């Protein structure tokens, strides 16, 4: 409910305005129409037959057109149909009269039009009750019919005639091989008259054709004769108002019988015959009739009395054929004269259902177009998607066909996706793996570390390599190496992790074996070095042993001599203990060097290590007459390393240095062992000799494996030294000294706990 205080909405305003406008228009229209009422001429057209006859429609519409074009006033035409052929008899006529009378009671008719003889009769008889005094125009009535009835008063019209010659022409065109022409007429005066006319007009054809006249025969006989006609015959049916027995007919009505009975094509002269079985003929057209009738009507409406307008004839006639009869007799449409009017053309399936067919075609075309469009679109989409699909394919291929394991998992290690290789590796189906934490597949001892690793990845954004053991389906342990990285959603928070892994069990085993071999080689070279020092080492042991022996034997003698020598014996015993321990140390050191163990890293004082090495090699140095001097820096931070391995390196370098100076004279064999801390915080241990230096062509190969200058050397020493130092995180290199000889330097990082 709209409240009064509210302003009217725009929509409501528009609606009200539209309604007012419409009302105005309606009023004006009404006024217009009613105002013109006085100037309108009303014409009642009554046709003999039903409304669907094309002839009637053609006449009516042409008549209307003529009237509308020619009338100064407005013309209103009412069409009515007697349908006299289907509803003959007075009862129907009476009904029609009554209907018309009632219908047009309040519409005064200015002109009556009768189409066809039955309509003329009806109107002529009953015009008084329908519309007295109204003039009448008739059309579609032939000469014979008018002659019979006579022209009613206050009437005029168009009378149709016929032309048998032209009709024959048409027939000859269609049947060029015809040999006989049969002219059919009745027995009445009118019939006979036309028969005589026909005979006369067709006489010129007598030399070409046999002209036979079947005239005035009783109908059954006529039909019989017609049925027995030879081929290549033309039948021209004129009129039969009365047959040989005196029976009266409407010529038109016999058309069907005649045509049905005849064994040859029948041609007629009246348009009314057309459609009842005749092939065709030269006839007046309905349009022409209607036009002429319309012309008469206009003149009457204009005021001319019908008496002054005698019934006229139509000028224009035309060839007309019934298409159905052409088909019936197999006559070629192409032989027709030009401008022939073809009636009753049954449109071919094509023509009849043109609209339907077109519609179907249209639908089909549309459908096809749609299908094509869809197909094209699909192909185009496929084409566009091809790269995407290809890359998806490739990705899927990569994921599924490769031997690397791919999986995705949640931070608690629950698997969300595993590829084929993964399933195959663990010998389980996808459904067994997805949904379970992969931690289960790792040996217990490594689980905690693995979970920690997952957390670490979750924090960082880059992937990381990680190795861990797994339990294989056969129960054995394998090694895997994984590269994991987090998968983040649009907001940047981690939803899953993706891992790509490979089995490195073989690799690991191989590495471990290599490591083992390396240790063995390291050990063996150490043993070899010590072998070289064996003489020297023996000497090292010998000294304490000599002392012990001599001490002990001295003690024996002393004790044998006099007990008062006890203080000396006590001293002796002290010394024995010391020397024994000394010997033990040498043994221990030796044993340490000979041990084939894992490298144990510990903080080392490099000066200590150097000193021990010199002690080990002392006898060797003495024997070779090599003078070793030391320049050990004080206060050095400690290095982190394996004592035995570093001693091995220094020993090797030391012995090499001895070798290098061996060619010099006895008093000139010198080497220096020094330690220092360099500017970068590295601990440097150098062994410098006064030999002949490193030849330039050997400089590159010095540290290569199997490179040696010794005749019986393996050449593994320096390369092994380098790898040992490398495993300590240091470097080993050699330089030539400016004043002769070479220096080998080992640089080691200081132990991180030591740096101040």
């Amino acid at each position: 409910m709209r409240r009064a205080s509210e302003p009217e909405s725009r929509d409501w305003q528009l609606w009200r305005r539209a309604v007012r406008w419409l009302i105005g228009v309606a009023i004006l229209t009404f006024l217009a129409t009613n105002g013109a009422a006085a100037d309108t001429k009303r014409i009642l057209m009554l046709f003999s037959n039903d409304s669907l006859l094309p002839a009637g429609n053609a006449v009516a519409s042409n008549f209307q057109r003529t009237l509308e074009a020619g009338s100064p006033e407005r013309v209103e035409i009412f069409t009515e149909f007697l349908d006299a052929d289907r509803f003959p008899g007075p009862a129907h006529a009476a009904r029609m009269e009554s209907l018309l009378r009632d219908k047009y009671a309040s519409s005064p008719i200015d002109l009556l039009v009768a189409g066809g003889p039955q309509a003329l009769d009806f109107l002529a008889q009953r015009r008084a009750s329908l519309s007295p005094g109204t003039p009448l125009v008739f059309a579609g009535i032939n000469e014979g019919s008018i002659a019979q009835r006579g022209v009613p008063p206050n009437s005029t019209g168009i009378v149709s005639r016929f032309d048998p010659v032209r009709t024959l022409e048409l027939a000859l065109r269609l049947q060029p091989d015809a040999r006989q022409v049969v002219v059919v007429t009745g027995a009445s005066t009118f019939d006979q008259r036309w028969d005589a006319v026909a005979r006369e007009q067709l006489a010129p054809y007598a030399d070409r054709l046999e002209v036979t006249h079947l005239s005035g025969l009783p109908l059954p006989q006529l039909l019989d004769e017609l049925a027995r006609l030879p081929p290549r015959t033309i039948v021209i049916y004129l009129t039969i108002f009365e047959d040989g027995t005196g029976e009266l007919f409407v010529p038109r009505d016999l058309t069907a019988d005649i045509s049905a009975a005849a064994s040859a094509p029948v041609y007629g002269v009246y348009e009314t015959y057309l459609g009842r079985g005749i092939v065709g003929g030269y006839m007046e057209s309905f349009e022409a009739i209607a036009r002429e009738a319309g012309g008469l009507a206009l003149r009457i409406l204009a005021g001319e009395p019908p008496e002054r307008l005698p019934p006229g004839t139509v000028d224009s006639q035309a060839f007309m054929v019934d298409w159905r009869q052409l088909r019936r007799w197999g006559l070629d449409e192409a032989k027709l004269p030009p401008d022939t009017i073809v009636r009753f053309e049954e449109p071919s399936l094509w023509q009849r259902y043109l609209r339907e067919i077109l519609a179907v075609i249209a639908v089909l075309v549309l459908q096809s177009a749609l299908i094509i469009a869809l197909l094209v679109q699909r192909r185009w989409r496929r084409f566009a998607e091809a790269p995407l699909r290809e890359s998806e394919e490739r990705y899927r291929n990569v994921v599924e066909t490769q031997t690397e394991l791919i999986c995705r998992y949640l931070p608690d290690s629950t698997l969300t996706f595993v590829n084929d290789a993964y399933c195959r590796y663990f010998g389980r189906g996808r459904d067994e793996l997805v949904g379970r934490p992969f931690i289960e597949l790792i040996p217990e001892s490594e689980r905690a570390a693995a979970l920690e690793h997952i957390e670490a990845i979750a924090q960082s954004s880059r992937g990381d390599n990680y190795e861990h053991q797994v339990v294989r389906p056969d129960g054995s342990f394998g090694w895997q190496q994984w590269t994991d990285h987090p998968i983040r959603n649009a907001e940047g928070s981690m939803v899953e992790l993706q891992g790509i892994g490979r089995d490195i069990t073989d690799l690991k085993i191989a590495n471990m074996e290599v490591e083992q071999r390396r240790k063995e080689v390291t050990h063996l070279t150490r043993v070899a070095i010590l072998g070289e020092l064996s003489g020297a080492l023996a000497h090292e042991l010998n000294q304490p042993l000599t002392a012990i022996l001599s001490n002990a034997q001295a003690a024996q003698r002393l004790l044998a001599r006099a007990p008062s020598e006890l203080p000396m014996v006590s001293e002796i015993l002290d010394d024995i203990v010391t020397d024994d321990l000394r010997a033990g140390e040498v043994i221990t050191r030796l044993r340490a060097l000979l041990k084939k163990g894992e490298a144990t890293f510990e903080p080392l004082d490099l000066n200590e290590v150097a000193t021990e090495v010199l002690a080990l090699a002392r006898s060797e140095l003495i024997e070779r007459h090599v003078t070793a001097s030391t320049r050990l820096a004080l206060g050095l931070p400690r290095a982190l390393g394996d004592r035995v391995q570093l001693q091995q390196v220094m020993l090797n370098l030391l012995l090499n240095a001895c070798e290098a100076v061996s060619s010099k004279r006895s008093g000139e064999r010198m080497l220096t062992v020094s330690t220092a801390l360099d500017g970068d915080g590295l601990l440097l241990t150098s062994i410098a000799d006064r030999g002949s230096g490193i030849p330039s062509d050997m400089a590159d190969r010095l540290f290569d494996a199997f490179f040696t200058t010794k005749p019986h050397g393996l050449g593994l020493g320096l390369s092994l030294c380098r790898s040992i130092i490398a495993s300590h995180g240091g470097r080993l290199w050699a330089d030539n000294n400016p004043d002769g000889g070479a220096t080998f330097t080992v640089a080691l990082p200081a132990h991180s706990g030591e740096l101040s």
Partner: protein
Amino acid sequence: MVDDDPSVLRALCRLFLAAKLEPRAFPSPAAFLQAHDPATPGCLVLDVALPGLDGLEVQKALSFSECTRPIVFITGRGDIPTTVRAMKGGVVDFLTKPVNDRDLLAAVRNAIEIDRAARETQVEMDAMRQRLASLTPRKREVLAHVVAGRLNKQIAADLGTVEKTIKVHRARIMEKMEVRSLADLVRLAERLGLPPAGGTSSRTS
């Protein structure tokens, strides 16, 4: 004793002391050579492998200075080449460490004995030389002829003097040289390395 290992030196010292010998210890060959007094009787106990001069070189050094002190080598190395070299140089004995006291003492005593004997001989020789030097030139001439085995008569004739004088020379020579018989004189002359006079001897020295 020379050894660079102090405990070895100490032990050996004690051993020698226990054996009633007089050890004198030096930690290095240099120290030893510096303090070395050739007049002191005794032997040298030496390790071959010594820093600086090794034992063999000490041996050489001593022989250069015409000191014939007998050496006993003891060493931690027992390699043959060293042994051979040492032996060629005239080493009394070569022992390997650890050294047994009996072996060491035996070798040392032997060496001391050799040294003593050598010294004695040296003293004798010195005396003999002294006596020889005390002879007049004439007498030395006569001596040469006498040890050649010439008769007094012959000698007199050679030297242009009478037999009698020769006889007197002979007696005085014998007395001065402190020998009793001609044979001793000859031996002495040999020992002193005097060449016999005359062209009859075909002895090659």
